[in-house]
């Protein structure tokens, strides 16, 4: 029983010693080992490593993963002298741990330095682009161009000075200065008003067109109808004439007599006064 206790103590002691003389570097990290404050080793691959216990050698770990940093909102001047307010984000990571450790040391200092360099580099870059390059209907928008250029400029300096690699630079805000924004609002209102007026005018024009067309179609239809009716009536007349002619041609003289009688019948009404001679056919017998 007592032996088991000793074995256990031995194991615990061993673990402690190993713990003192070793350290792990995670897959997300890199480390710089310093001896009396001076960097002696850089470990970039994860795994178990050996070192002298604490006061002699210290381990400085850095997260080697991608980090995001956002700048302040800064007003820049474009090539065509227009003001824009831009905010950038930078995705960066530690490329050279030893360099980073010596020149910067920690993330918040790194961000401070990034901010300074970013503003000067992006100011210069924005100054090479026109406002139309960033925002335009006609031209192709070259925001990506600008971002890539800033990324290259920025990395050139940060990699050399601080061992920081810049993966991406992007615009996370793009705005106009407050004073310009008001004129933009006014212009927007004017544009909308013009569009609204255009719609209304268009509506009136189209409606009037449709009505006029309808009226015209109506009048065409009715004229055509009258024309058809006249043709039909004419046909009627022609047919009647044909029938009459056919019948009356058999005895034109008798027709004349008959027709005259018919006519008398028709034209002599209550208002007519017939003046006849005693010698007339009708009254000849009145004379003695």
């Amino acid at each position, binding site marked *: 029983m007592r032996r088991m206790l000793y074995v256990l103590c031995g194991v615990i002691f061993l673990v402690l010693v190993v713990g003192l003389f070793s350290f792990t570097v995670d897959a997300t990290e890199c480390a710089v080992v310093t001896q009396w404050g001076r960097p002696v080793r850089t470990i970039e691959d994860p795994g178990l490593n050996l070192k002298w216990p604490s006061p002699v050698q210290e381990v400085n770990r850095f997260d080697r993963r991608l980090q995001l940093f956002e700048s302040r909102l800064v007003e820049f001047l474009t090539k065509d002298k227009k003001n824009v307010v831009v905010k950038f984000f930078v995705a960066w990571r530690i490329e050279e741990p030893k360099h980073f450790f010596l020149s910067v040391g920690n993330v918040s200092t790194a961000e401070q330095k990034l901010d300074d360099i970013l503003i000067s580099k992006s100011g210069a870059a924005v100054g090479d682009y026109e406002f139309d390059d960033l925002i335009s209907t006609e031209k192709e928008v070259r925001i990506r161009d600008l971002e890539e250029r800033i990324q290259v400029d920025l990395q050139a300096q940060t990699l050399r000075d601080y061992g920081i690699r810049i993966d991406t630079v992007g615009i996370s*805000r793009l705005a106009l200065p407050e004073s310009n924004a008001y004129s*933009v609002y006014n212009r927007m209102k004017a544009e909308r008003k013009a569009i609204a007026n255009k719609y209304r005018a268009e509506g009136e024009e189209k409606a009037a067109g*449709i009505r006029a067309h309808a009226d015209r179609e109506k009048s065409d*239809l009715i004229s055509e109808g009258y024309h*058809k009716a006249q043709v039909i009536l004419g046909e*009627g007349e022609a047919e009647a004439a044909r029938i009459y002619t056919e019948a009356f041609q058999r005895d034109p003289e008798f027709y004349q007599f008959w027709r005259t009688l018919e006519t008398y019948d028709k034209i002599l009404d209550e208002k007519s*006064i017939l003046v006849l001679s005693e010698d007339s056919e009708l009254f000849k017998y009145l004379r003695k």
Partner: protein
Amino acid sequence: MVLGEFADEKRLVFRNLDRIVGGVLVALVALYVASGVYVVQANEEALLRRFGVLQRETVKPGIHYRAPWPVDRVDRVKIKEVKRIEVGFSPGGVSARSVILPYCITSDRNIIHNRFVIQYRISDPAKYVFNCVDPERLLRGFAGATIIKVVAARTVDTVLTTGKREVELNILGELQSLLDRQDTGISISSVETKLVEPPGTVSEAFRDVINAREERSTMIHEANNYRNKVIPEAKAKVTRIVEQAEAARFQRASAAKGESSRFLGIHEKQVRAPEVIKQHMFLAMVERVLPRVKVLVLATDARGKLIKVQLVRGALPTVPQLPSASETPRRECPARTLEPAEIPMPFIQRDLLSDR
């Protein structure tokens, strides 16, 4: 005696202490060893690291064993869970305190606010865990930049109305390629517009445009209604006119047929005894006509001079300038003899009176 008992008990405790301590130690060791058991849930995948080195990239759901701390480390990642973030530029957003309200600028330099809901899941746990410090923050940054870029290339009307879906798809595409380039292990499942609107100060003007568009279609609609009313009416009228004409034609033809057959009938009879029939017809006509007309009969002498005028039937109309005429009693019949002077002038032609 008492002391002896105490010593006995003490010895007992000491004898058992070995066992107690031993038992506790064994239990602790067992617990330590057992702490290596871990469970990966159905919607998860796990990553196994040994001394910081990635050992297994995908540990599937189920119960597993690993070496206990500090040797092995397990990270569970919910790969099937769809996460949701909101990104955009609206005054109600996160950075409401900043001096300049967040907004986007469209290609025709209009200011708009928008918000998008982005849904994503972790497609590659190893990349997700080992490549970024804060993947969600990175995603937000990338998403914001993508939105700015996409909106900057489109007009305000596209962004607000017609191109919503296109904007969403563009953001999705560009954002995904950006995320892939940085090996973030994030896969975007959808981008949806939650809000897109003009700023408050100009929203009235934008609403007016919508109203105007509505008015336009209303006006056109009304005009079409008018057309749909007028044309059928005109067609109906045309039909009526044509039908009337057809009726008139038929009537005319029928009348002609009737008349001609009547004529032919009479003609038939007339052929046998022309003069008699003629005479008969003439008198029949006279019979029909005379009862309704006024008849004056003029008698002349041998030289043709007018000697008397006789009103055979009917009454003469009143002629005020002839007093005698008004005295004349008006009777239907029998015939009465009038002096020529009594005859109202309009009824007798001058030349008729003078000669013959």
